[in-house]
């Protein structure tokens, strides 16, 4: 093992001790939680930060001229700094807090889509997007006359770059909106190449980082993308908060999305003037306590270190692929070169729901269904898959438990 500050041994037992829920018994069995890609569990530090915020320094933010409100405002704006630091944003004013990834993408679809893109221009998505990165663009297409183009994926589950380039060729594409990591296939997409490709054709790039940010270091300056979104609850943070990062000049250009308090500079009945970015996009009382929780989650992940996290995860994925692929009748979806901690599979003779129910009775939580990616299911020729996904706290033993659990499912339906 190499010696150095940057490579810390990743102590999964210590990490697990930080997550109270992992002590939970399910039907009398140890909880094996393999659904972190849907939503991750929360470390004690996040829960404590939220509690502390509500017990000791809670008040509404931004307009209060008193101690509690000043403390809450400071904590809320510090959360913006934490998100800016995490993404290597150019500036804290580029961080807009939303409810979740879905709202962040909708914000771009409304504000950039209706406010900056012109009818006749096109948006490109891919076959492996989450509904959150499909439906807002369909609504934009139907309301605003935007052409919606779909980049195919290869059989190994990667973006087909040649086809993507062809979709961009006519120069009418204003925005490319792609996942940075598939929540079904685990595929990590080549962000820098995508940005270069989009820019070469005059298009902006939005990356849906809902999954990627959990597994990989993200540097929006290095990637050189234009929009990046993620959601707090998958990054070991609270529900009710998400992040939109966008280049300052784009945010300046975009009209506001929701109207209300805090996003205006002045209001009269005749006309309102908008506040400076990012406030222009944050109408009403924001998720204050959730922002504080998110800042703590970010600090938690940073303290463990993305290098260590990625190394841990690679071990898990390799182990899972080797264990699962030796199960007869089991088919794994997605064989990308660069992949994160998500493994989707189908089992001959057992529907994914039945798999999930039978695993549940063994204490093992996996997800079954279309994973909010119906078009991808169609591409794969299935209605649904079962999916195991891994977090900081996942162990190789848990993956063994999954493999054994699947064996029992096979026997049950044999």
């Amino acid at each position, binding site marked *: 093992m190499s010696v150095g500050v940057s490579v810390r041994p990743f102590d999964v037992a210590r990490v697990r001790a930080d997550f109270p829920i992992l002590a939970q018994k399910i*039907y009398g069995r140890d909880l094996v939680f393999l659904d972190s890609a849907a939503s991750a569990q929360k470390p004690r530090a996040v829960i404590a930060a939220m509690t502390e915020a509500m017990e000791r320094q809670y008040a509404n933010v931004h307009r209060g001229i008193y101690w509690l409100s000043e403390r809450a405002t400071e904590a809320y704006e510090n959360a913006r700094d934490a998100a800016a630091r995490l993404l290597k944003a150019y500036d804290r004013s580029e961080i807009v807090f939303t409810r979740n990834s879905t709202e962040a993408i909708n914000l771009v679809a409304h504000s950039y889509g209706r406010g900056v893109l012109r009818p006749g221009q096109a948006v490109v998505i891919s076959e492996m997007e989450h509904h959150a990165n499909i439906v807002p663009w369909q609504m934009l297409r139907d309301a605003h006359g935007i052409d919606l183009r779909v980049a195919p994926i290869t059989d190994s589950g990667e973006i087909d770059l040649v086809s993507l380039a062809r979709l961009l060729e006519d120069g009418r594409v204003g925005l490319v909106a792609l996942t940075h990591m598939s929540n079904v296939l685990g595929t990590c997409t080549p962000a820098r190449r995508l940005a270069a490709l989009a820019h070469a054709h005059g298009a902006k790039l939005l990356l849906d980082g809902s999954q990627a940010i959990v597994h990989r270091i993200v540097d929006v300056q290095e990637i050189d993308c234009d929009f990046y979104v993620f959601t707090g609850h998958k990054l070991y943070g609270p529900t009710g908060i998400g992040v939109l990062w966008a280049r300052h000049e784009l945010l300046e250009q975009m009209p506001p999305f929701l109207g209300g308090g805090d996003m205006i500079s002045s209001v009269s009945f005749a006309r309102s003037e908008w506040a400076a970015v990012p406030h222009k996009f944050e109408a009403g009382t924001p998720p204050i306590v959730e922002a504080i929780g998110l800042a703590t989650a970010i600090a938690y992940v940073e303290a463990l270190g993305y290098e260590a996290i990625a190394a841990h995860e690679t071990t898990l994925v390799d182990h899972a692929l080797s264990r699962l692929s030796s199960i007869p009748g089991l088919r794994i979806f997605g064989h990308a070169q660069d992949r994160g901690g998500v493994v989707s599979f189908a089992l001959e*003779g*057992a*529907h*994914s*729901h*039945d798999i999930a*129910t*039978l695993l549940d*009775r*063994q204490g093992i939580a996996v997800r*079954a*269904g*279309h994973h909010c990616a*119906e078009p991808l*299911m169609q591409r794969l020729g299935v*209605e*649904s898959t079962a999916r195991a996904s891994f977090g900081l706290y996942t162990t190789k033993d848990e993956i063994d438990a999954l493999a054994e659990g699947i064996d*029992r499912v096979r026997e*049950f*339906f044999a």
Partner: protein
Amino acid sequence: MFEDLRDLYQEVILDHGRRPRHGSRLAAFDATARGDNPLCGDRIALWLKYAEGGAIERVGFEAKGCAISIASADLMAETVAGISDEEARQLAAALQALAKTGDAPIVPEPLAERLERLLPLAGVHEFPSRVKCATLPWHALLAALTGRENATSE
């Protein structure tokens, strides 16, 4: 290990789930409907043919779904053959109650025996996320009976 799952996956369910007897489209039919469970991707299409006297003669279906939903669809096809629309509605209501509560409601005599054949589906009530698997085919049936095109089991 799965003792408590035997309630859910009774032999009848596993058997009908594996080898549905009515799992095909009817060439000639009088009504048809589709059903979707938006939350998990289950789908069913069913076709319904009436006999001379107005009773349901046959039901055929094509479904993508789990053991529970296929078995429920197949048992539905079996139990509604030979009864009237109104009786089929009553049976559907009874099945829905059964799946949600685990208890079979009281139904008029001629249906009681049919409902009994559906009892293996009662186990689903302990699995809240699976209740919809059992009820989806019946939603589609109700849709076909009232001439609607789609049903969702939400």
